[in-house]
């Protein structure tokens, strides 16, 4: 059907993964751009982007349970921590100070991290079946504090507060990805691996949410009474949403510190959960691409605020002084969430939709 790109002649075309020509063009363009980037920018920016890609996997996870299934979870930091410690313990070497099993193959510990986190997600899920809204948020908030305490005390796993332990060791087909080699630098390799993983997990999540399961999540979120009356098992889908979400969190947690190589239990505080909530809300609740946009935005935000002291002299660049950049960052998360909720509840994705609709009919506004 040349020249009539929006004329579908089969349901398969209509329901395809990328069902319009602009979607295909944009996706291809973004992938090509992302693959070129490592050869264009410096290693420290690559590390930041790679961290953003990992955060995006975690944000997709939170978006599945909160954005799609409508179960507010403040416990995402807990599931990230489960993944991080599973990955680190499985792949790390036994040092006497911290435990390790020496399984350095990335696919193995990555899958294991996801599964262990998903297991804990399933354990927590029955609470979500009983509670909703703020009450669920409070219970999942409790998880974060519970986790913080356990990880602080369990020093043979975590290395203890302020000390920490090495993160998971990324090895793929016998190649250590966190070391420079003849072709690529460590940052380039990690960037590319994280990008590929984001594409894989992004595509899988997108498939899930456009399937029978994703529609059932949305039904549970919008009207649980109607959902059950048309045959959706509320309990089953709430548990499933938590399991999938925690799996993604586990995967993201295991990868999150690979780039820096070291982490301590203090990383998994309430602030981390809030950052992920911010990613979902700023990016756009209930969309996969929104979660990715939000994650990149929040990850790149500190980089921008670090430049503030040069422009605004009353903000200090270190921990001393009346107003520090760290305080400014914390305030910014809150302010941005509020601004987006009021001005554009569909988040960055919503802004993108508006831009798209404007150009679709340009130069006619209707």
């Amino acid at each position, binding site marked *: 059907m040349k020249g009539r790109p929006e004329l579908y002649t089969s349901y*398969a075309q209509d329901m395809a993964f990328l069902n319009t020509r602009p979607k295909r063009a944009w996706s291809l363009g973004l992938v090509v751009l992302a693959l070129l980037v490592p050869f264009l920018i410096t290693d420290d920016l690559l590390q930041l982007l790679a961290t953003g890609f990992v955060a995006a996997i975690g944000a997709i996870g939170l978006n599945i349970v909160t954005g799609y299934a409508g179960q507010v979870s403040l416990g995402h930091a807990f599931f990230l921590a489960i993944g991080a410690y599973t990955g680190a313990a499985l792949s790390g070497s036994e040092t006497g100070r911290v435990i390790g099993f020496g399984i350095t193959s990335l696919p193995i510990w990555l899958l294991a991290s996801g599964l262990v986190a998903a297991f804990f997600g399933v354990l927590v899920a029955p609470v979500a079946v009983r509670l909703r809204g703020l009450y669920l948020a409070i219970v999942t908030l409790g998880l974060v504090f519970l986790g913080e305490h356990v990880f602080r005390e369990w020093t043979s796993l975590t290395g203890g507060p302020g000390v920490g332990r090495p993160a998971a060791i990324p090895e793929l087909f016998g190649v250590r990805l966190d070391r420079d080699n003849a072709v690529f630098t460590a940052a380039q390799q990690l960037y590319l691996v994280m990008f590929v993983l984001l594409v894989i997990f992004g595509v899988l999540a997108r498939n*899930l949410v*456009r399937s*029978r399961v994703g*529609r059932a999540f949305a*039904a549970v979120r919008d009207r649980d009474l109607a959902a059950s009356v*048309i045959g959706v098992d509320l309990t089953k889908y709430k548990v499933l949403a938590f399991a999938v979400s925690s799996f993604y969190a586990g995967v993201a947690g295991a990868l999150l510190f690979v780039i820096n190589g070291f982490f301590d239990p203090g990383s998994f505080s309430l602030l981390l959960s809030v950052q992920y909530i911010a990613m979902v809300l700023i990016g756009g609740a209930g969309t996969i691409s929104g979660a990715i946009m939000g994650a990149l935005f929040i990850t790149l935000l500190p980089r921008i605020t670090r430049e503030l002291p040069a422009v605004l002299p009353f903000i200090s660049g270190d921990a001393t002084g009346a107003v520090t950049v760290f305080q400014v960052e914390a305030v910014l998360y809150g302010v941005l969430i509020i601004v987006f909720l009021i001005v554009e509840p569909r988040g960055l994705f919503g802004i993108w939709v508006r831009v798209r609709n404007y150009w679709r009919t340009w130069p006619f506004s209707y």
Partner: protein
Amino acid sequence: MSVLQVTDVRLAFDGVIAVDGVSFEVGEGELFAIIGPNGAGKTSIFNVLSGVYRPQQGTVRFAGQDLIGMRPHRIAALGMARTFQNIELFSHLTVVDNLMLGRHNHMNYGALSAFFWLGKARNEELKNRSAVEDVIDFLELEQWRRFPVGLLPYGVQKRVELGRALAMEPRLLLLDEPVAGMNVEETEDMARFVLDVREELNIPMIMVEHDMGLVMDLADRVMVMDFGRPIRTGTPAEVQEDPDVIRAYLGEQHRSVAS
């Protein structure tokens, strides 16, 4: 051979008796109407049938099983579909997605195959999309297909809700005030669709409705409720003549006028 048998159902919320002593049967292909003043317990009967409320007493037999105590999604899987008095659609989703949700139980694949959208999952989705298009065709919803239902006019939303119930391929359809709040034209459209469902799909229906003209024109049999109790069940003509019914609707002093 009756599709549904309700025997002596009693539902109370603490001291408040919502429904008491309700018994009726719905036959193959029958359109059974329940009427009564506000608060007579009509919607409560629907909530008992679809498993939202659990009655203290009585039995409900449907598809060879007793429904009392069964969770709503299990009852839906047996083939009971309903619409709601106040529209209960998933307002952020498109018409197609709402109808696809109606086919939730007709799709037979799990979360793992959903991740990959290949083979079985893809086939099931396409097959059911095709079935959804039949419903869209049946209810003349083609032009609204891609709209989020929250943006549609009220009358169309009511039609989408009927469509979601029909997409379930039900063995019994419960319609809770299908024309409430509609203008004359919308009401006639809906009446036509209800007749189409009976003529072409031959699905038995129970309809709760306040529009007397519509009930008397469409229904095979009518049950009149008042204060949670059935006061008369019969054909529309019989019910209209019944002095108790007239008293419940018009009050004591009008009795002489009516008779």
